[in-house]
């Protein structure tokens, strides 16, 4: 899960990293009060989980509380790269002397975390990394050792950061480890004219797998912009809404991704990604079908299952069960192969629903589902 800037800011503060004074609101009137409390002059920042906020006009300086209210009104509700701005953060401006970049990120290739640091922080760090890689230090961190003061000093020196950043580097590593984060990034980390080191903006990605041991996770933390996605999540389904007309259900992320590709290759667009996983029960199948059938964009549905651990007769039972609870209004193409496939096909043959048809190959089934969607 990606955190909002203000959540990352709070996390940094809890771990003893200096951050600007700031507060979050979804109300322009409240923005005026906050600005007054912060001394009048504030930076108004859109809270969205995407980059390029500044360029999109989502970060603005307001000279006084009245301007803060007006600016908050402009920014709230704004659309930044398909993210609607629901809250703004108002922060005390900082007198910046220098801007740096620091992050810890998972290096998948090495299987460890990597410290990335540069004395040239700010918005264009990717360009710096591409055009002058020598300006960006990359130091692997031994997971058994972590970032000690000595390690932090090594990182700071390699990147040409002032010695006073060492403490921040150590604390930032604590954030990464204690919060089970996959990424902590501060950009920019600034030195103020007064010489203080402040985290001005941050990005934190938490590891979904660590939910069971992190109290910070709440049920309301995962947001779904889409009603169908919310309904699927409520049923514990791994579902992503897409913009085409062929509903897709399959087992295993790899096979489902492959199914989307094969359908697209037949000239139709998939309506969704839905992985019912290994060992999927009849109930999961029925839940998945009911979500997909409630999508008005869906013209046909393709159920693509290779029974490895999942037994195809259980999948067929699920389809039959769904047919009893959901009124099937769209044609369903089913391809069952692998574990208990013959039994699964027989169950569907016996049910003999006029809108359900079976295909023996994945490519053949995809073509049929694609045609049904484009001619419907």
């Amino acid at each position, binding site marked *: 899960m990606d955190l909002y800037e203000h959540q990352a800011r709070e996390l940094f503060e809890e771990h003893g990293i200096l951050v600007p004074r700031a507060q979050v609101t979804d109300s322009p009137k409240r923005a005026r009060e906050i600005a007054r409390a912060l001394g009048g002059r504030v930076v108004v920042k859109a809270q969205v989980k995407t980059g390029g906020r500044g360029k999109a006009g989502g970060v603005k300086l307001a000279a006084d509380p009245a301007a803060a209210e007006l600016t908050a009104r402009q920014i709230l509700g704004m659309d930044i790269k398909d993210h609607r701005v629901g809250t703004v953060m108002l922060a005390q401006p900082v007198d910046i002397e220098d801007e740096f970049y620091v992050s810890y*990120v998972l290096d998948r290739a090495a299987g460890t975390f990597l410290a990335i640091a540069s004395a040239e922080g700010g918005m264009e760090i990717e360009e710096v990394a591409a055009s002058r890689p020598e300006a960006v230090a990359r130091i692997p961190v031994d997971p058994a050792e972590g970032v000690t003061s000595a390690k932090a000093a090594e990182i700071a020196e390699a990147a040409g950061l002032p010695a006073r950043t060492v403490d921040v580097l150590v604390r930032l590593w604590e954030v990464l480890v204690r919060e089970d984060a996959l990424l902590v990034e501060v950009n920019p980390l600034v030195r103020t004219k007064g010489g203080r080191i402040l985290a001005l903006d941050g990005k934190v990605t938490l590891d979904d797998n660590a939910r069971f041991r992190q109290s910070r996770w709440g049920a309301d933390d995962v947001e779904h912009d889409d009603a169908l996605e919310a309904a699927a999540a409520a049923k514990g389904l791994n579902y992503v809404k897409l913009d085409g007309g062929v509903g897709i259900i399959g087992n295993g992320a790899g096979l489902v991704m492959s199914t989307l590709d094969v359908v697209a290759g037949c000239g139709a667009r998939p309506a969704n990604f839905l992985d019912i996983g290994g060992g999927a029960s009849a109930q999961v199948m029925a839940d998945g079908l009911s979500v997909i059938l409630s999508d008005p964009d869906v013209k046909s549905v393709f159920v693509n299952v290779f029974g490895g651990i999942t037994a195809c007769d259980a999948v067929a039972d699920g389809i039959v069960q769904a047919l009893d609870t959901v009124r099937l209004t769209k044609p369903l193409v089913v391809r069952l192969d692998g574990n208990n496939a013959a039994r699964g096909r027989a169950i569907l043959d016996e049910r003999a629903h006029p809108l359900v048809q079976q295909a023996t190959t994945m490519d053949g089934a995809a073509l049929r589902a694609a045609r049904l969607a484009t001619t419907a």
Partner: protein
Amino acid sequence: MAIYLTKESKVLVQGMTGGEGMKHTRRMLAAGTDIVGGVNPRKAGATVDFDDRAVPVFGSVAEGIQATGADVTVVFVPPAFAKAAVVEAADAGIGLAVVITEGIPVHDSVAFTAYAKRKGTRIIGPNCPGLITPGQSDAGIIPADITKPGRIGLVSKSGTLTYQLMYELRDIGFSTCVGIGGDPVVGTTHIDCLAAFQDDPDTELIVLIGEIGGDAEERAAAYVRDHVTKPVVGYIAGFTAPEGRTMGHAGAIVSGSTGTAQAKKEALEAAGVRVGSTPTETAKLVLARLEEQRSLTHG
């Protein structure tokens, strides 16, 4: 021969007495795997009957190794305990630990893969279906009856895509199929498997299955170009998949790649790997490539 797993492998199961462990131990035994014991400190000394075979339960991996000479462990323990289980296995000096468990926190995977490497233990997984050397041994949850022994080596991130290709090519058969797992950090990579298959006299052709995210396939492509002389056929899933979560600026900086299916396909093709556009087409490419190979050798 095969890679990593043969009929000589003596296999322990950590978490054997749990629901998934029981179910899959029974399947592994049916596939011919030499399961020599389970590990559960609370049930040490017990035996578990699987149809016609009684499997002893040991209190620790070290005891299991001492009593049986086990050299492989398959880990089914829940995510919260997986790190401790793998560290224990590595400390006991096991050669191969196959970690099936899904949902292990990445910090734990980072810690135990680094630890195992130091101890000389190979990790396959986590979050993987395991590996199978058809006709010899099956360590994990790959169904054994999909395919037969043969001369294709297969390495894949995805379980069900592995099954699909095993099924499409069931008449040719496989030397070993390795599901390396889809987590960001895995103990054994595409490259490790490519190197092992290249050295395996029983493997004639290698199938490499990848999917979007990270740059493992791009690195595998570079490895193929420089080190693999056997034919390689590839498949990449995820051309139309929704854009995944980006890892801030740092992700792009680290990988130096966009991680898209297109980028991976291009990298593989540039290295001389033929890449199928569907699993079925991939299987056809394999057949064609084997045909060419054989006519070269014999004609």
